[in-house]
């Protein structure tokens, strides 16, 4: 671990100017650089990885950070190259990005919009980061995306699932690889129909904030399209830790499915409470009572322990994908191998999305031949690629959202080990989860034009 690959971009930049002597006043804004914010001038380029390091999502953030470090290693030609070898675009050659060695800085979002923006700002202003990535909440993603748009750097979103990130809050400088609530709903609907039929009555418990609302809206719309009734939509406070008073009335409400639009600690607690109340063993309307958690991560499954068994949800990616569903999902095993060998356990979907985003950025820069955000945006818009573990994928130009297959999973009844908590039920193909750019759930915003800063 003593390989210090750390040379600040400033060293050479300064060195070259130091000869000129003293005071060389310039406005940071204008053309002193190549016309865009933080243009790398030395032989390194700095990326900013802004992940939750404290607070409830710290473990997820740690996994994202591992993926980022791995991606940087691979870009710089160390390690086994991971998904670079399976990636359909072949311009990355392990010499950094366009010959510049990749450096990175890290920061803590604390899963708070304010703190995340402050952290991203310091990366941009102090460390000269030219791209910001990471995060594990939609509020943070939207806030940081807005900042990057204003500052003129690229934002490659990490884990953010709200429709708004590429919907009403989309930005020209921001890109999302992760899927969203609409896609979750569209992917889940056929599976739910197949598993639970078309005559169901759903009761929604929804975390009372932006992401919860968009997911509730998406799932309710998708299940109602199947013919399900929505009995009730109940909002629960974000700060709630004990959901008993929300869970208790469910069974007597006439519902036979409980949809938990909760994430993180909220989901772990509400699911635990629901199982405690014995909902899964009950009968309602002559059917088995079921619980659905539209989005959950490996870490949440771990937190919920055996309560997750049999619970259906959706994921952006799963580490078993290539083994079970064939080489349409090539790249998965390569990534799992290099991640697993370095850290000793398989990567989470958050790690995969962060790794892919870093590679996609590096690739776009290389293809564009410039670090200029506008060139990068152009290179990413409408980019079709494969081999990053999700199958053929499109970065749609209209909203900077990736379109790819969505994995529907179910908690395993008897997990063999602590990494093997979910099983893949189905992979819903891209076509079924694609929606028009102007879909009502995504309307209300505009990409605007790319901002190179300067």
């Amino acid at each position: 671990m003593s390989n210090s690959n750390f040379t600040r971009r400033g060293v050479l930049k300064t060195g070259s100017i130091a000869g000129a002597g003293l005071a060389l006043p310039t406005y940071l804004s204008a053309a002193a650089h190549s016309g865009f914010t933080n243009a790398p001038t030395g032989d390194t380029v700095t990326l900013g990885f802004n992940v939750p390091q404290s607070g409830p999502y710290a473990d997820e953030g740690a996994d994202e950070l591992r993926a980022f470090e791995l991606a940087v290693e691979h870009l710089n030609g160390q390690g086994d190259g991971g998904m670079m070898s399976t990636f359909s675009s072949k311009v990355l050659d392990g010499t950094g990005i366009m010959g510049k060695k990749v450096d990175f800085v890290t920061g803590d979002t604390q899963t708070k919009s304010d703190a995340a923006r402050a952290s991203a700002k310091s990366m941009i202003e102090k460390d000269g980061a030219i791209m910001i990535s990471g995060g594990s909440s939609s509020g943070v993603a939207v806030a940081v995306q807005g900042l990057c748009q204003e500052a003129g750097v690229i934002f490659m979103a990490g884990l953010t699932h709200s429709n708004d990130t590429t919907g009403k809050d989309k930005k020209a400088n921001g890109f999302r690889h992760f899927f969203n609530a609409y896609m979750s709903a569209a992917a889940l609907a056929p599976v739910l129909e197949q598993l639970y039929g078309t005559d169901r009555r759903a009761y929604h418990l929804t975390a009372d904030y932006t992401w919860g609302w968009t997911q509730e809206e998406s799932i309710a719309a998708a299940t109602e399209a199947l013919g399900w009734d929505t009995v009730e939509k109940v909002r629960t406070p974000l700060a709630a830790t004990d959901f008993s008073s929300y869970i208790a009335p469910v069974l007597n409400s006439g519902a036979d499915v409980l949809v938990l639009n909760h994430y993180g600690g909220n989901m772990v607690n509400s699911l635990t409470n629901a199982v405690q109340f014995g909902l899964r063993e009950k009968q309602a309307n002559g059917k088995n009572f079921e619980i659905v958690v539209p989005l959950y991560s490996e870490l949440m499954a771990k937190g919920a322990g055996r309560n997750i068994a049999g619970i259906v949800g959706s994921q952006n990616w799963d580490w078993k994908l290539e083994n079970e569903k064939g080489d349409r999902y090539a790249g998965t095993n390569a990534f799992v191998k290099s991640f697993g060998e370095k850290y000793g356990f398989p990567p989470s979907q958050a790690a995969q999305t962060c790794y892919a985003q870093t590679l996609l950025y590096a690739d776009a820069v290389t293809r564009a031949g410039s670090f200029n955000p506008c060139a990068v945006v152009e290179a990413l818009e409408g980019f079709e690629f494969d081999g990053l573990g999700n199958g053929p994928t499109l970065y749609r130009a209209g909203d900077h959202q990736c379109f790819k297959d969505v994995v529907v999973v179910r908690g395993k009844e008897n997990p063999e080990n602590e990494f093997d908590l979910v099983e893949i039920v189905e992979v819903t193909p891209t076509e079924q989860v694609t929606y028009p750019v102007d879909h009502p759930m995504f309307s209300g915003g505009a990409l605007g034009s790319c901002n190179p800063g300067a």
Partner: protein
Amino acid sequence: MLGLTKKDFTLFVVVIVMVALAPFLLNPFPQGSSLAQMFNAGYPDLMQRFVIFGILVIGFNILFGLTGYLSFGHAAFLGVGSYSAVWMFKLLGMNVIPGILLSMVVAGIFALAIGYVSLRRSGIYFSILTLAFAQMSYNLAYSVLGNPSSNFNLTNGETGLQLLLTDPRILGQSTTPDGSLPVTNFFGIAMRDSYELRLGDWLFTFNAGYYLCGIIMLISFYISIRIFRSPFGMMLRAVKSNQQRMNYTGLNTKPYTLAAFVISGVYAGLAGGLLSSMDPLAGAERMHWTASGEIVIMAILGGVGTLIGPILGAGFNEYFKNILSKINDSVLHQWLGFLPDGIEDFLVTIIHPFVGKGWHLTLGLLFMIVIIFLPGGLVEGGKRLGGMITGRTRRSAKAEAKQRNHPAE
């Protein structure tokens, strides 16, 4: 001078010089050096935070330091101020002045209402009342008042209130000609404009927004000195000292405490307005009780009831918060690279839990150390240090510390 005593004036000048030269003082290491990466704090965002939180704590100190009323919900005013300013940028235009003014007015009205109710009780009952009001504001801002799909989206919930290309901005433009959001400015000077100065290996950044905040902070600081030295300030200290005697001396304590509460609320609103002016997004988290707690921490860290304490406390807290959280293992390896590999790895393992994701731990330990060993906060630490240098005995410094309720420098 300026209506200040010589001692106060000297202090004020020192603070002016510090604020003016902060871009130099906070960047002691040459750019690109390994120490610079972490310890240099002279970049716009952090410098702005230093002075903005300085304002916030200066205001809090007028309430807590002088009257002894411990508000545990002061972050609510910061949040309210932030939202007000962003609304001004959305509706009116991007000049920061209307935003800042509105944030002060709205925070003042909030403080008047909350203070009027809360000041009916004292001690911990007062603290819990303010806490309750602030938590209510936070919870409502996060959920009910921030639903984008409702007609009454005041706060935009989790994401925070942000500028949109579709905002009216009746006195300005909704979008710039190239299709982006306009930036906050002070009569044409963009808040994010900076002037960079290179001196050899050193790079110094002079940011317009920082200097605006700095000037406002100096004005706030000046007003706070005047308040401390005024009859009003003395009355506030008298409230803290003996309310019974106040009442039987023909003085009505309620308007005094309420005035102090409103003044400190306006300060907090101003700080919120400035935060939004520097970065036009207002998140609900800045109203959370931990944010209020942080204000208390900064005040006590610096030295309650002292003039300079709030600035020191705010600086200390913000600095360590920002610096510690950004140190990761590769940075540590870089610092310790000169050591033999074994020792280097060992030291990195030791330090690792205290930096990066462990920054809370270090900050918690620092709080404890300061509170345990410096009951008067950093100001007392400075005095003891000064005492040691000038050869005064520690005892006299301690004796002085006992009187720390006096407004000291």
